[in-house]
């Protein structure tokens, strides 16, 4: 296949960014949405074509690098190539990213219509898609880092899209700074790995490190700082970067706030694509995590499991529908993370890896659907708060049905997509780590509960009260409903894709076994969660308040997100600003500069004695200065001669 096709997939959105960013406002204000969407459509078609070509060519899937360009030579050993890496997960990801992005582009044609900065919105969307595609196609760790940062900045731009709203600016800043903090780990991890393995190219890196007896593998395994090997430090630090981007506990605090961005943006970036970058990164380096540093992989598993249950508990208590979805995203990414954590390398033990990627795929479908559905609801009621909703099922039948499908999918009810991927994850956890398995099981019950709490509160509960701003009451045009329907198809049907055949740790197709007796427990828990939600929220009643009151302290803590934000605020404001920043500024102004002034004042005192020359006019000083300098130079040369 000609290289240009690979290049076009990310560069078409880039072209969209440049075109709309520079000329959108002036020349095609209202057409800019269609231009961006059209470019995205072409990019999507190419991505599907490339992926189809790759998966249908053979039954074993090699890691190819069809495009390569030397970007920067750091030293004899390390040179950075910009390239396209073709392997099963990158091919899957380009399809996911371009597909969801296309859906969001189409949806936004309706959702963002009439916005003042409509072209800017589309140019930022295109920039994000370009960066994300660059990230998933990256052929080396450094390239991943480059696009990782670009993804971060496009996320900043989109969260802060309503830039005159202080809360949006604060959320955008928070997202960027928290992930930047995590990226510091990533950066140092890259330095460690570059230094120990003499390469950053994924293919070479994996090949040299995982082959036993290679020089790099043994030097990387040698124990260094605090007894851990250099490679352990390297992968652990890289995982910090991944955890930041994927909003894993305790670096998750930016994600709920990121919901300040327009809702379609939340669907694309903060649900379906960017936030899974951390999972993708671990998957990308999975052979190294699994073979060289299993200890770090354990950490990945635990962080994932804790995040999954932690976020699910918080989600049960929130009332802002976008925030509920945000916590649910964090929880589901936790699933993907611990699935990787419990996976081993090769054969059946690699199930967790397959399951994680599978869940990434299905989650992208139903989570994007949930957000876009929520967008329709928010458009309709002009509020994010669950309390302002209720009884909407008759007013918006399409949204209602598609939202229900997505809820069933995320709750893991067969035969919807989430059921299959979640079953695989649970099976992998069952085989890998019993405690994590039980955590996951409890979480899946909670998931079903909070999702249906959301569903019943929006579409059932109290009848909808048409309030004063009920002018243009409709569900939104077909342009917004079409993506919902397409995604609903994905959320309902994508579970039947035989993922193990394409994505596995060692290239040997993994048969997905279906164990009926194993599925009974998770599905039963899911149903229990749904019925619980139904009992509490289907009709208006006072049971929820009673329940909250009986859980008093715990409920409060969960409602306040376990006070993690307050802890961060304390550390940054009180400690970093007051104990480091302020003293540094004070020290510079008073001590360092003070000494200079002291020297200066002494000199001035001396010059007081030749006051006659001081006329107070700086121009005159200047002339003295100039002549003095020249005179000195001449004098100097003559004395020498």
């Amino acid at each position, binding site marked *: 296949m000609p290289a240009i096709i690979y290049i076009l997939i990310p560069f078409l959105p880039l072209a969209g960014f440049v075109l709309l960013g520079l000329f959108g406002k002036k020349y095609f204000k209202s057409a800019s949405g269609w231009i961006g969407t059209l470019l995205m459509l072409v990019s999507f078609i190419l991505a599907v074509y490339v992926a189809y070509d790759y998966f249908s060519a053979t039954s074993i899937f090699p890691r190819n690098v069809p495009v390569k360009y030397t970007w920067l030579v750091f030293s004899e050993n390390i040179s950075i190539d910009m390239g396209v890496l073709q392997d099963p997960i990158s091919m899957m990801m380009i399809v996911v990213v371009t597909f969801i992005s296309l859906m969001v582009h189409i949806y936004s044609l309706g959702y963002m219509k009439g916005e003042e900065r409509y072209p800017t919105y589309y140019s930022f969307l295109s920039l994000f898609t370009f960066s994300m595609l660059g990230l998933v196609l990256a052929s080396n760790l450094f390239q991943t880092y480059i696009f990782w940062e670009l993804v971060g900045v496009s996320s900043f731009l989109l969260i802060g899209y309503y830039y005159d709203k202080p809360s949006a600016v604060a959320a955008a800043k928070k997202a960027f700074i928290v992930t930047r903090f995590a990226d510091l780990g990533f950066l140092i991890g890259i330095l460690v790995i570059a230094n120990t393995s003499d390469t950053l190219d994924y293919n070479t890196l994996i090949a040299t490190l995982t082959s036993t007896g290679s020089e790099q593998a043994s030097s990387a395994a040698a124990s260094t700082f605090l007894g851990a090997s250099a490679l352990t430090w390297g992968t652990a630090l890289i995982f910090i970067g991944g955890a930041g981007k994927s909003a894993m506990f305790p670096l998750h605090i930016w994600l709920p706030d990121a919901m300040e961005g327009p809702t379609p943006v939340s669907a694309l970036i903060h649900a379906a694509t960017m936030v899974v970058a951390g999972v993708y990164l671990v998957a990308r380096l999975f052979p190294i995590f699994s073979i060289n540093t299993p200890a770090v992989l354990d950490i990945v598993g635990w962080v994932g499991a804790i995040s999954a249950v932690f976020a699910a508990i918080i989600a049960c208590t929130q009332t802002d529908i976008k925030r509920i979805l945000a916590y649910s995203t964090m929880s589901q990414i936790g699933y993907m993370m611990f699935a990787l954590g419990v996976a081993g390398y090769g054969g059946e033990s690699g199930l967790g890896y397959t399951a994680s990627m599978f869940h990434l795929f299905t989650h992208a479908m139903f989570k994007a659907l949930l957000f876009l559905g929520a967008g329709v609801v928010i458009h309709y009621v002009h509020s994010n708060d669950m309390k302002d909703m209720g009884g909407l099922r008759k007013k918006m039948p399409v949204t209602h049905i598609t939202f229900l499908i997505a809820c069933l999918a995320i709750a893991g009810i067969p035969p919807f997509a989430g059921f299959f991927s979640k079953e695989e994850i649970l099976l992998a956890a069952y085989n890998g780590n019993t405690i994590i398995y039980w955590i996951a099981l409890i979480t899946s019950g909670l998931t079903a509960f909070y999702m249906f709490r959301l569903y019943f509160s929006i579409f059932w509960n109290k009848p909808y009260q048409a309030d004063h701003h009920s002018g243009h009451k409709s569900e939104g045009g077909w342009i917004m409903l079409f993506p919902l329907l397409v995604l609903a198809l994905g959320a309902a049907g994508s579970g039947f894709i035989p993922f193990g055949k394409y994505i596995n740790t060692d290239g040997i197709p993994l048969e997905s076994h279906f164990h009926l007796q194993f599925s009974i427990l998770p599905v039963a828990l899911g149903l229990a969660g749904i019925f619980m939600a139904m009992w509490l929220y289907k009709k208006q009643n006072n049971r929820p308040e009673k329940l909250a009151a009986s859980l008093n302290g715990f409920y409060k803590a969960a409602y306040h997100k376990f006070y993690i934000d307050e802890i961060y605020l304390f550390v940054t404001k009180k400690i970093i600003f007051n104990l480091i920043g302020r003293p540094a500024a004070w020290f510079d102004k008073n001590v360092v500069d003070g000494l200079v002034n002291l020297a*200066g004042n002494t000199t001035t005192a001396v010059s007081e004695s030749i006051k006659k020359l001081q006329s107070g006019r*700086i121009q005159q000083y200047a002339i003295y*200065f100039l002549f003095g300098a020249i005179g000195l130079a001449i004098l100097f040369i003559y004395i020498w001669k």
Partner: protein
Amino acid sequence: MNLLLIILAPLLTALAVLVCRNKEQVKWTALAGSLAQLILAFLLYFAFRHEKESGEPAQMLFQQDYALFKNPNIHFHIGVDGISVAMILLTAFVVIAGVLVSWNIEKMTKEFYFLLILLALGAYGFFISLDLFVLFFFLEISVIPKYLLIGVWGSGKKEYSANKLALMLMGGSALILVGILGLYFSSGGSFNILQLANTNIPGSTQNYIFPLLFAGFGVFTALFPLHTWVPDGHSSAPTAGSMFLAGISMKLGGYGCLRVAAYLLPEGMKEYANIIIVLSAIAILYGAFATMMQKDLKYINAYSSISHVGFSILGIAMLTQTAVTGAVMQMISHGLMTALFFAVIGMIYDRTHTRMVAEMGGLMRMLPFISTVFFIVGLCSLGLPGLSGFVAEMTVFMGSWENTGAFYKIATIAAAMSIVVTAVYILRAIGQTVMGPVKKESFLSLPDAKWNEKLAAIILLAGILAIGVAPGWLNDLLRPETEQFMHKILGVK
């Protein structure tokens, strides 16, 4: 290519400005002259590359040597290598942008432009000099205009700032002068850089001379704790003055540290490397933390410059080829970036008449062009890939990490931590100025950038993007020279 053209162009421009009869003539002459300098810089770059590609082995190309005095042995000896070519390109970019943003200077326009071009002349001469005395002479030429630019056209406590700057830089110059004389006498009477590089100066002598030279040039490049002229100097200077000061003048110091102090005194360099690493790591973090507390845009950029310039010094002191290459890249990158930063701050100030972050807000609405540029330059400062700062900082990090030993690793990690602090202060500044609600009614009618301002911004942005998107050309220009440098340092002939 005849290197004399590089200094003749600004000289002729300066003289032409003097004979102009009105403001319009002055401005257009200065612009034409700086355009000529830019074209010459590009010609030099291509000629240099052509020579290198055709296998020219000499270290310094396009050399010319005229004896000025027999005793002392002073020659007007000029020549360029990849590093000087890169520096000359940087200077030409900053000069033309500086000329463009000063378009509306009302007070003594002729004198203003004359001094600007004079400063540029000093910088060009400095970068092509191969004779230490001539190099010193050009360095001084570039100091005097700074004093005047701040003292006459400045704002705020300009006399204090001008005096402080001049005294500190003169102090630095004095150290440099003593150092140069030390080199002259200990080498048996030579100011010639190429000859000195091949002279064996005893290690103990080097240990005396090195600190003088490094500290002297360190004042120019704002090496901690010799940096205190920077915040006041920059904040009082007129826009173009700040641009030249941070964009060019601080680079004279960095270039001097590398070309004179480190290159000619490798033993001294190795002896003091660890101290310099500590100082620069402090500068990077301390500068970043101090920036976090600033409320005035110019102070923000001034302190952040201290932090960023720390990377150049750190890279030099890390003494690996990659780190040194990164150090030079950082000089170029920071020169372009900070010049643009000051240019944008100037544009904002001209409109809002305030530089206080807290008094602005929502500028994006009225000033989309200026705000976008401000945003991009901020992203460059915080090291966003695709812009020049990232490439330079990453190269320094990669090179620093090549050193084995916990000391170097800790210093690198400390420096790397600044990327988080930088993100904090940059986003804070951006969040409060270009984003957020509009704070004053009167801001709603502010006009966006004019053609000259747009052109200046685009020129500097082009440079930033050229390094950020495709750094290969700059790397190829610098790597052979840093390899040479490392050979000298490590004592390989």
